[in-house]
């Protein structure tokens, strides 16, 4: 492999990894903020417990997102210097604004939230969490504005061979970004919903298994208490059943949200990157049918031996245009159009190194786009269906005693993560061979595009990038094990693991635990929370 291939693997691995932490941070942050608001408004102790428990898991995960996020910003300059030079005038701004307007807000106010339980008035403490969470939503917006410009460049003109920003409004309201942002946010909420659902299911199951909760003659749950286990009181049951229901509802709403926004996004992509969508369908010839199952050598990058085994007529046209009859162009007819517009071989330019003069492969790796697209939808749909079934199965106030169902619920946590990863892999791989895809709109700026082959740092050796790939991948693997172990430890510990104060005083009578109690005595509050 040469530097380009290694750099692409590195970017893919580090980004997909980073984007395991990010959606959980955004989604869980929003959920915890809502729960703390409920606590603030009602003063019910179970909401405080939920805030503390889910807040603890949120923080264990948040820090990994922070740590792996720095790599992303540095990587553009380190491994993709030609890309950075080419796009810097327009692409750098959203990154700088993300740091200035979002990361500062996120990190500063989260610090206030973690450490400020007693230093701050409850309303202000709650506001800090909301500000931090809104900061994370803004950071999603800015980074997607940057990514959307790579998908669909707007608001620039070419000056001396480089795109120069001429219309910031167009860049920051790129229609690609405006649908990708809600799609991503719903995807993040789906992750949080599945997370709550799976973990709450586990605890409800455990309470039944341990004989704490029993089922009455009417089939309804009778919550009990286990005197010997810290935190396993009646209130604990409320914590988990409410978390489960919030999780299930969030998962279903967010799946509906991803479907609606995904449909809008798909329709845009059929216009903006028709080849990506044709490759998503492994649609070789023009037509209207949606492939349910295609066989053949999808990886061969040519269409000749791909056969759609099951195809539903009209659906592809509906996905692309909203009707059932419009012919959608397939790979074979698009290929000619791309070759006419952007050439058949890589230009004879030193930037391309050994690749100069090679045939340009306009068809993305179809096994990735075809299956990535289906995994995204499949994982998302399965998770939403499971959430619906979970609501029904828990209508009597607890979960079935089945251990197998519990395991399914816990492993189901992974499905929305899978959907998120598959979606990003699909959209980024589907953009190839371009790193900046051309904007085909007739009013667009047709010469603004860049082949991925031209983007890598010319001065950096393959050995250097291989070193960083090995180093980062190993560290990420170790840290993933550490993070999951810590999460499991705190999940198994239940609410008590996030609330050591449960050991000292019953929650209901403890004045410190009323949301409007105000700051404690000054001597106690130097460290309301300590590392």
């Amino acid at each position, binding site marked *: 492999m040469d530097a380009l291939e290694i750099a692409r693997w590195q970017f893919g691995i580090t980004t997909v990894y980073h984007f395991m932490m990010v959606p959980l941070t955004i989604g869980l942050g929003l959920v915890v903020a809502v729960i703390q608001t409920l606590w603030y408004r009602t003063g019910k102790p179970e909401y405080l417990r939920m805030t503390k428990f889910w807040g603890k898991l949120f923080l264990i995960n948040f820090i990994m997102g922070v740590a792996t996020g720095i790599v992303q910003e540095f990587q553009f300059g380190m491994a993709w210097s030609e890309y950075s030079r080419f796009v810097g005038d327009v692409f750098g701004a959203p990154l700088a604004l993300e740091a200035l307007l979002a990361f500062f807000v996120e990190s500063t106010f989260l610090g206030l939230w973690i450490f400020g339980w007693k230093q701050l008035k409850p309303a202000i403490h709650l506001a800090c969490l909301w500000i931090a969470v809104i900061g994370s939503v803004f950071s999603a917006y800015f980074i997607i504005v940057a990514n959307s410009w790579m998908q669909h460049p707007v608001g620039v003109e070419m000056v001396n061979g480089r795109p*120069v920003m001429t219309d910031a409004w167009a860049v920051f309201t790129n229609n690609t970004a405006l649908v990708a942002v809600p799609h991503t946010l719903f995807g993040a909420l789906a992750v949080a919903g599945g997370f709550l659902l799976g973990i709450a299911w586990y605890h409800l199951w455990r309470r039944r298994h*341990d004989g704490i909760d029993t089922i009455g003659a009417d089939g309804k749950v009778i919550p009990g208490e286990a005197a010997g286990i810290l935190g396993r009181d009646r209130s604990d049951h409320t914590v988990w059943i409410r978390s489960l229901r919030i999780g299930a509802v969030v998962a279903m709403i967010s799946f509906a949200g991803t479907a609606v926004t995904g449909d809008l996004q798909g329709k845009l992509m059929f216009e903006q990157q028709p080849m990506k969508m044709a490759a998503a369908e492994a649609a070789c010839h023009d037509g209207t049918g949606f492939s349910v199952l295609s066989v053949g050598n999808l990886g061969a990058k040519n269409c000749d031996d791909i056969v759609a085994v099951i195809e539903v007529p009209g659906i592809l046209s509906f996905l692309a245009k909203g009707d059932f009859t419009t012919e959608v162009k397939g790979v074979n007819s698009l290929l000619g159009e791309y070759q006419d517009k952007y050439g058949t071989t890589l230009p004879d330019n030193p930037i391309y190194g050994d690749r100069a003069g090679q045939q340009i492969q306009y068809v993305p790796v179809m096994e990735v786009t075809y299956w990535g697209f289906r995994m995204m939808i499949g994982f998302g749909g399965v998770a939403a269906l499971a959430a619906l079934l979970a609501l029904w199965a828990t209508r009597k106030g607890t979960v079935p005693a089945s*251990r197998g169902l519990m395991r399914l619920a816990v492993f189901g946590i992974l499905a929305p993560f899978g959907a998120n990863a598959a979606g990003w892999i699909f959209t980024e791989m589907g953009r190839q061979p371009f790193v900046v895809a051309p904007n085909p709109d007739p009013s667009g700026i047709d010469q603004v595009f860049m082949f991925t082959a031209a983007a890598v740092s010319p001065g950096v050796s393959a050995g250097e990038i291989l070193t960083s790939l090995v180093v980062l991948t190993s560290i990420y693997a170790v840290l993933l094990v550490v993070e999951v172990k810590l999460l499991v430890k705190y999940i198994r510990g239940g609410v008590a693991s996030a609330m050591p104060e449960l050991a000292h005083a019953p929650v209901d009578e403890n004045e410190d635990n009323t949301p409007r109690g105000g700051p404690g005595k000054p001597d106690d509050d130097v460290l309301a929370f300590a*590392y």
Partner: protein
Amino acid sequence: MELLPTIWFVAIAVLWTGYLFLEGFDLGVGMLMKGFARNNTERRVLINTIGPVWDGNEVWLLTAGGATFAAFPLWYASLFSALYLPLLLVLVALIFRAVAFEYRGKVDNPRWRARWDWAISAGSFVAAFGVGAALALTTTGLPLNANGDREGGPFAWFSGYAVLGGLAVVGFSLLHGLGFLALKTDGEVRHRARAWFVRLLPVLLLPMAGWAVSLQLLSGEAWTIAAVVAAVVAAVLAWNFARKGAEGRAFMSLGAFLLLGSASIFGAAFPVVLPSTLDPAFNLTVSNASSSDYTLGLMSIVACIGLPLVLAYQAWTYWVFRRRVSAAHIPEAHSFLPAIAAKALAPKD
């Protein structure tokens, strides 16, 4: 020389200075986890002085990097790709350090803590050294060709200036960390930090002074040389204040040293942002490496609103957590009974 690129050169210098001022002390406190802190309680005192703020401080680095990308894409691309391996080390250090702060106290086990203590201490050292080396090299030059790419292999960036700059930021951060601890803790840690501050100041500031002076020899101007002199005066003041126990003033004087030192360094480098050691014709300058005026203008407007806001709410954070931390405030390690652990109650299924 154009106005907007010059403004953004100053803005990036300000961001780097803000980064070194803020993250400087938390990098220093991180390094002091080993060698200075004597037991677990003291180490927890150290971590908790920076606990609420270190992450916000680190964003200054991201903002400096992002602003360089946006305002001077060619500078960003050449500097970051030329320094590929050293920056990889910085990234690794920052990853471990960040995770360590959050995870260290999450398992009540001495071996677990010891590992993360090393991550914090070594991570802080490597990050400080790497950032210092990169900043020194952007002022003294890298072997760049006409396209701005590094010639001569993965280690061609290495020079004595890299070591000098690395030591400069490590030394400054250590001293600044000591000054911060003297200001933010009470009891034994406070007194020891102050004593170390007074004793070590001349040694720890020497490399940064060396970097500033060598840049004056390369390309100094009257006002930047005056800034070096003023920085030395500020360092003497810091030493004197610390000796008398005026910890706040010592801390601010050291801040003034950084500000003046950084002004002298960036001022002497201007208008070159990254010299080429191969041929001065390949130098990246404020005018040939910058973005368009349109982009810079947009960023200027946003920065004029955004940066004061950041300063305001970060200052507020320091106000909220203004009280000194001492060993007496550190709660017991949090060991809990997992809700699942009580197997006794569980019927076998």
